[in-house]
């Protein structure tokens, strides 16, 4: 009796949080997405498929999110290996602080930092011109490559931290044993390090993918006019067009999309969500 009382005391805030802040708003949005001007309708979802700009942006967003996640992973793996296995123990804490330092300022400030560096009258162009490498300033902002770079930069930490913690648990002698048995560097990565780090890779990738897919600021500021991101479409519907029904439908499509891609990714790598915590 007493134990079940304690159970309810602890579970109630969690339930309240889930119901009030997650479940109810989503239910409301779900209802909104099926509402037309006066009646129930599927028009909001139909619009998405008939209007190419919508679903093209959608596909683009998904594709770029996957690319960004992969790029972040490829960059984060050697960084994590360096921090855990190569750097001296004393240097390690310092390196972790360096990695976290950019996250002490807000995302907005970070993006403006990049803009100061990259814009036509920016620092980089100044140096290029004073070194005589170009005569005219080069426009480096407002294209897809810059946007992806910005997204990778923003996501880096969320990939490195889970990777550092799994690589920490990798016994150095496994790497040496593989080398002793004749494995090359690439082969050691493929057969020992990556299989060992799989749980960290999967959880890091899920977090980064979700963050990138739902990011609004970076694509908006660094991507410019031609680099539409799906979150901008949702924003436009809610704020610019004041079409809450359409915006709610888009929001749900994004939710379904991200869940589907993560499910597919887990299937392809043979992982299960429950195993990630272990």
């Amino acid at each position, binding site marked *: 009796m007493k134990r079940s009382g304690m159970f309810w005391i602890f579970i109630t805030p969690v339930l309240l949080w889930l119901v009030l802040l997650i479940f109810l708003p989503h239910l409301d949005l779900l209802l909104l997405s099926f509402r037309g001007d006066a009646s129930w309708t599927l028009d909001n979802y139909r619009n998405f498929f008939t209007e190419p700009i919508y679903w093209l942006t959608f596909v683009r967003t998904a594709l770029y999110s996957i690319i960004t996640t992969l790029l972040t992973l490829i960059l984060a793996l050697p960084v994590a290996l360096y921090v855990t296995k190569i750097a001296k123990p004393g240097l390690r804490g310092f390196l972790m602080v360096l990695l976290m330092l950019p996250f002490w300022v807000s995302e907005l400030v970070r993006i403006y930092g990049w803009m100061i560096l990259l814009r036509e009258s920016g620092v980089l162009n100044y140096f290029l011109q004073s070194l005589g490498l170009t005569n005219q300033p080069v426009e480096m902002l407002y294209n897809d490559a810059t946007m992806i770079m910005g997204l990778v930069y923003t996501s880096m930490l969320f990939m490195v931290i889970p990777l550092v913690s799994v690589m920490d648990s990798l*016994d150095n*002698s496994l790497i*040496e044993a*593989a*080398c*002793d*048995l*004749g*494995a090359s560097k690439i*082969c050691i990565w493929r057969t020992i390090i990556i299989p060992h780090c799989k749980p960290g890779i999967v959880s890091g990738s899920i977090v980064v993918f979700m963050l990138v897919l739902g990011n609004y600021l970076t694509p908006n500021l660094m991507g410019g006019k031609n680099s539409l991101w799906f979150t901008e479409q949702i924003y436009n519907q809610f704020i610019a067009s004041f079409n809450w029904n359409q915006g709610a439908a888009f929001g749900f499509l994004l939710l379904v999309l991200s869940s589907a891609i993560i499910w597919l990714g887990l299937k392809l790598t043979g992982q299960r969500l429950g195993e990630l915590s272990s």
Partner: protein
Amino acid sequence: MEADLIVTCLNKEFGSFRAVEEVSFSVAKGEFFSILGPSGCGKTTLLRMIAGFEEPSSGDLLIGGRSMRGITPDKRPVNLVFQHLALFPMMNVAENIAFGLKRRRVAAAEIRRRTDEVLERVELPGFGDKRIHQLSGGQKQRVAIARCLVLDPSVLLLDEPLGALDLKLRQQMKVELKKLQAKVGTTFIYITHDQSEALVMSDRVAVMNRGRFEQIGSPQQLYNDPTTPFVAGFVGDSNLWTGVVVEKDGEAVKVLTDEGFVFHCRQRGGSGRSRVTLFLRPEAMIIEPIDRAGLNIFQVTVKSILFDGANSRLLTATAAGHELLVALPQNRAFDHIAPATEITLGWHPKTGIAFELLDQP
């Protein structure tokens, strides 16, 4: 005999600390060679230099007549069995064993054949599909050895491979490892700080102390004819006396111990300085000898009986209170000995060895 491994004047420095100092030895093909030494004396460092994971500061290393300087571990014809085995947990037993063969691009059918064959040899047939965590300690041990043996290395290096096992299993694996080596005929270099492992298994043993080799020899030589006081003290148990040499005739010396006994014994090297430490094995002392001619004879009092089956001992003390361990044969001839009885001990001059006393212990 053809030498498989020749090491000459090998040195390794970590900063100003010398972990391995002027080590030279050679190991013949098919030999079981052990390196025995206390913890931290540089054994692992030496082995890692042979395997290629540490670069020697100076000296040379030849395997099969080829110098190994500048050759990376993956290209050396040696394999290392790690202290904690380092089996790959993400692979099953067969994949672990096939790992090295795959790197050499051996055909799949050939890999299967050789994996099965080596599992047969280490007496684990049919274990190929097991995961590593399903194996017992002794089985893991044999998989780690099989993983190296399947590559036919000219030299197999083993770094305290029995260290993680419990005592009982260690005794058992000791015998099995010796049998396995005799069967496969591979040269083994075996590192241990456990003297009984080294003495039981090896053809030859090197005793290492503070980065240096003190003595290289057969287990019998090390036990019966140690050349340095460290070896005499480290290999097997000894009773010690300090004293002065009063007479010297070649190796045979007469020593006056500090408590007043006069003993005949052998002296190893040295002359001039006459202060010595005398080492005597517990089993060299004969209890109540019948024929006393030529023996060193003295009286002691029994303090207690340390019964341990075949390894039983008497803890005795001389009149001056010097404690001595004496082997007590379990042949029922000494059943009358009880604590506080006085007994006569005798030992042959050949069995005691005196070393000149070092300035620093």
